[in-house]
């Protein structure tokens, strides 16, 4: 059986296939263009690629034939800013947040009972919904108009943004989104009402009395366990956090070696206690400790971690792994991750050992397996 995985890079989108044995690149799309993200929709097989053309802005393209042909579709547009709207100056940045699309930062397919629904998180913080597979998009106003949204601030980028959208497989109206920086937000009614749900997260970079302020948290990436969606894992700016109550509260996982800093996280689809992370030295340096690329795995909900390195470079390797650049397939056995220096690794045994698929790709932004519905 063929397994496919899509790799979004600074110079195009690459599709890999694994037949009976090895992985190989089968297809390259948008060569030379900055492909920042890709979504595979398990309900209909569609692919959606996000491109950042720099001069010409952000564009979305959709393929209905597995990436052989692509058509440009509508890009999310922020509605016209009301003339009487007076934006609040964000105290962290000394200026108001932008009101215009800067980046498509996350894409997620809606639930199985809502065909055509897609979600798109963006910089500067707008969440968009499409009900027609991306032909049109609408800004979710309840979240955008929440007064707390104006307090969001950029983490690593000038603007705040939504990088994680988790759709509860039991209930399509239950969404959990991660904001950098603005904590975790949850809706239980399809986006009509939102609550901030980052209780228990700790922001080391804030003054002591504000470190547990939910809206100041910087989760780098949030993932949800498919078989037990009440369990979510967050790779946060200064630590790893886990929730077992659908984000109502979060518990910090302490004493993570070699480092608790990183961007990417993956959770086993059938085992909520098993998760993977790619640690790096925090946070102004951002490279693998001692130049050794490793993956951290816990199988007991964060009580202990194994540091996995078999097959990964252990000398003078300075690969940083971005938040969307680690993924796990639907079996939970196969993982793949890519780095800012164009290295791509895969494991077929849950991370016990790794195979180098390429050391020469462009900087990698996102790795996404095709998964069955």
């Amino acid at each position: 059986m063929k397994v496919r995985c899509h790799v979004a890079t600074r110079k195009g989108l690459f599709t890999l296939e694994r037949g009976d044995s090895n992985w190989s690149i089968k297809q390259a799309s948008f060569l030379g263009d900055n492909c920042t993200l890709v979504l595979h929709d398990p309900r209909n097989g569609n692919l959606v690629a996000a491109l950042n053309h720099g001069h010409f802005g952000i564009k979305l393209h959709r393929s209905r034939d597995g990436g052989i042909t692509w058509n440009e579709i509508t890009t999310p547009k922020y509605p016209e800013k009301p003339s009487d709207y007076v934006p609040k100056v964000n105290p962290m940045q000394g200026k108001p947040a932008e009101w215009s699309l800067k980046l498509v930062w996350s894409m997620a397919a809606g639930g199985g009972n809502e065909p055509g629904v897609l979600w798109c998180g963006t910089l500067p913080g707008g969440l968009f919904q499409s009900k027609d597979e991306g032909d049109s998009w609408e800004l979710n106003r309840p979240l955008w108009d929440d007064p707390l949204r104006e307090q969001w601030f950029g983490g690593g980028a000038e603007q705040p943004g939504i990088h994680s959208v988790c759709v509860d497989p039991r209930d399509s109206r239950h969404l959990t989104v991660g904001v950098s920086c603005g904590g975790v937000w949850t809706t239980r009614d399809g986006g009509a009402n939102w609550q901030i749900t980052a209780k228990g997260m700790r922001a080391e970079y804030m003054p002591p009395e504000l470190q547990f302020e939910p809206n100041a948290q910087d989760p780098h990436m949030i993932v949800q366990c498919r078989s037990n969606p009440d369990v979510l894992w967050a790779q946060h700016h200064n630590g790893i956090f886990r929730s077992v109550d659908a984000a109502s509260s979060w518990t910090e996982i302490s004493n993570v070696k070699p480092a608790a800093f990183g961007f990417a996280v993956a959770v086993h689809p059938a085992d909520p206690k098993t998760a993977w992370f790619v640690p790096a030295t925090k946070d102004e340096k951002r490279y693998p400790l001692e130049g050794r690329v490793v993956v951290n795995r816990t199988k007991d909900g964060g009580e202990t971690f194994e540091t996995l390195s078999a097959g990964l470079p252990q000398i003078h390797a300075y690969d940083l792994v971005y938040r969307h650049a680690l993924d796990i397939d639907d079996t939970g056995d196969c993982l793949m991750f890519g780095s800012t220096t164009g290295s791509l690794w895969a494991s077929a045994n849950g991370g016990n050992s790794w195979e180098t698929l390429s050391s020469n790709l462009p900087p990698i932004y996102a790795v996404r397996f095709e998964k069955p519905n």
Partner: protein
Amino acid sequence: MPFFVFVIPLRFPMPTVRFTRNIQRHVACPTREAAGTTLREVLDCYFSSNEQARGYVLDDQGRLRGHMAVFIDGRQIDDRDSLSDAVGTEAVVDVVQALSGGRR
């Protein structure tokens, strides 16, 4: 004696809009005339029959994209947000890339 009426078609001069070659691989933007007395009016006229191109030149708030530049008869425009710069009836509008956005 037959009575003849000669109808002479009138052609009112209009501004001409030209686009950078680099945009053409994304969306065809042929050089053509577009009516208007301000840059906003001229570009609106052009994009009214080429809606896809609008998003390549203007952002979602209708402002000139950060790394695009527009010249009217060789003079760079002043108003990148409202696009209120005047455009003469026989002016040439050039829509080009700013080199500032070229770092990839």
